[in-house]
């Protein structure tokens, strides 16, 4: 199984997320993450979907997605020509005797301390998902109390913009 990243511009309306997630459930697509956000254009939201599957599933997912009236543009992100980022917030157990070690680790990963309490701290880290995975592994022994990941977002490098693409149907 491979991982694929699909980016989409969709109508910024209520119910669109339900339509899309409902489609994934109905067609039994295995989604690793789905990240939705607003864009420079109020009428559109941007979604980044990480699919785990094969070429067949990828083709079906993009074609089925493209049939939804509210989905305006779709692209499969080019692994070598895109910027991928995810944000992690993690609350770690940090008693006074462990704190300096955690600060050392944080320096290596260029994470930020965004909250501090006598027994805990919250670290913030941005990067590609595998960097986040590595970071989590290292701090796990200290005791992760809770964490939140945004799911991955992606933009293609250079001048190419999703909105300028021809309709997905035209490319097949």
């Amino acid at each position, binding site marked *: 199984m491979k991982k694929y990243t699909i980016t989409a511009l969709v109508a910024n309306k209520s*119910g669109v997320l*339900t*339509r899309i997630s*409902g*489609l994934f459930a*109905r067609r039994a697509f295995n989604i690793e993450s789905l990240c939705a956000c607003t864009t420079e254009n109020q009428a559109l939201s941007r979604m980044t979907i990480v699919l785990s599957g094969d070429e*067949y599933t990828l*083709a*079906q997912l993009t*074609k*089925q997605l*493209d*049939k*939804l*009236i*509210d989905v305006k543009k779709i692209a499969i992100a080019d692994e070598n020509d895109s910027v991928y980022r995810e944000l992690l917030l993690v609350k770690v157990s940090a008693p006074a005797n462990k704190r300096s070690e955690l600060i050392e680790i944080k320096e290596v990963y260029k994470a930020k301390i965004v909250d501090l309490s006598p027994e805990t701290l919250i670290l913030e880290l941005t990067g590609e998902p595998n960097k986040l995975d590595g970071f989590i592994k290292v701090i796990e022994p200290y005791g992760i109390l809770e964490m939140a990941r945004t799911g991955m977002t992606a933009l293609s490098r250079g001048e190419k913009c999703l909105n300028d693409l021809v309709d997905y*149907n035209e490319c*097949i």
Partner: protein
Amino acid sequence: MKLSGADILIQCLKEQGTDTVFGYPGGCVLDIYDAIYRDGTLKHILTAHEQGAAHAADGYARATGKTGVCIATSGPGATNLVTGIATAYMDSVPLVAITGNVTVANLGRDSFQEVDIAGITMPVTKHNYIVKDINKLASTIREAFYIASSGRKGPVLIDIPKNIQTEQCEFTPAAPAPYLPKPVAPEKLKEIADILAKSKRPLLIAGGGCIGSNASDNLFALAKKMNAPVCATLMGLGAYPASDEQFLGLIGMHGTDAAAKTFRRADTVIACGMRFSDRVAGNRAAFAEGKTIIQFDIDAAEIDKNVKADHSVMADVNEIFKVLLPLLGQTDRKDWLKEVSAYKEYENANFDSSLPAYKILRALRSFTDADTRVATDVGQHQMWTAQYYPFEQPRTLISSGGLGTMGFGMGAAIGACVGSGKKTVLVTGDGSFHMNLNELCTAVSHELPLVILLMDNNCLGMVRQWQTLFYGKRYSQTTLDRKTDYCKLAEAFGATGMTIASEKDIRPVLKKAFAAKGPVLVDCKIGIDDKVLPMIAPGKSFEDIITKLG
């Protein structure tokens, strides 16, 4: 001019060319029904149940090619439409379903007869809407009609809260947006034309797309130019005239032996607006072995979905034919057609009762015209109709293929009858008929010229057939043992009842039934153990066709 939401709806329906709607009134559509009453020009068919209205709008659309319209109130009215909407979705039928709902202020409060019909129908519609702003009502309705009737057609639902129906806004009339299928670039077809020219044993399979895109004439021209045999999926029956010598009939699970044999020998299969459903392809993995598969479909998602095509073009099938035809020369394939015609010799070995259904269906054709709409329900009678009634023209078979909805027939036949304005036939079974027989009252109220042939075998024949073949004859809950007297039932509804009890009754009773006015119910007392054969068991290949039971 300023109009209320309900009046805007009526104006927009008329703008779209809608002359007939099927529906059922209720609390949250009172304003819409008031507008229908005040307008007085829309023909409204009041059904007995909202499901009947949805199937009727579907049958109307299948019979005419126009977009069918049904109306139901909120809550149970709306949920009763769901089976009808799902049926239309699976068979790509253009349908606009209009539901009322509680006021926008009451949405989400579990108000009386409130249901999230947009949420419920999301997976079974092409698109749906909840209109929360009166200013967007007209554009939403226009968009809904465009979506329903363009590309791969399908149902669209518009949920209109009660306050939107009464609020007013400025209304500007507009002509419907025309849908013109995208033309196909000839380059896309050059390679395919070469393959077709070189093919020794091509086979054309016509699917529902040939009917949806009105491609029948060009399909015929293509078959004649190529000298290729043609078979059809259930949804494609009628796209090619059954009486033509190149036609092999239905292909798939209950397809003809000739179609199966021809398929096995074919070197190139041209799938025209069909999606290789499991009922057609059987064993998908083995389906394409040793063949070149060419697929034409308007829906990109259908290409390579069930069977991997070697070559495909994503476009309206008729547009493809228009471009492909001039690229092909007249090809002589005498040997191939001769081989194929030998496969057509086939005995009806599957009937052992004294009144075999196929004899009724064969006789039926002498009482109908080539354009008579024949609706079916779902089960053995449906397959027998597909196998033995010769469909000569598109839009004459009205049948639920993808969803396989028992209970579809009564509503669909009413819609087809209203749409065609002609005598219409419904072939049904005693199982399916009992599901929605209430709609007999609708047919009577409107004095519809409907001949209902009820294949009465006192059991759920198709399920029983599977129990016979795959479940050791353990007939769990399939022997109906109803005491319904169909003739009395018909009379009670105000229709005419007749009986075909033996073979000698067939012609005289059909003659009487077709001469009678209004709906006629003919109880055809067929045998309990007649089977639909040939059969390819689920997941099996065309080699595994069963033509006779040992």
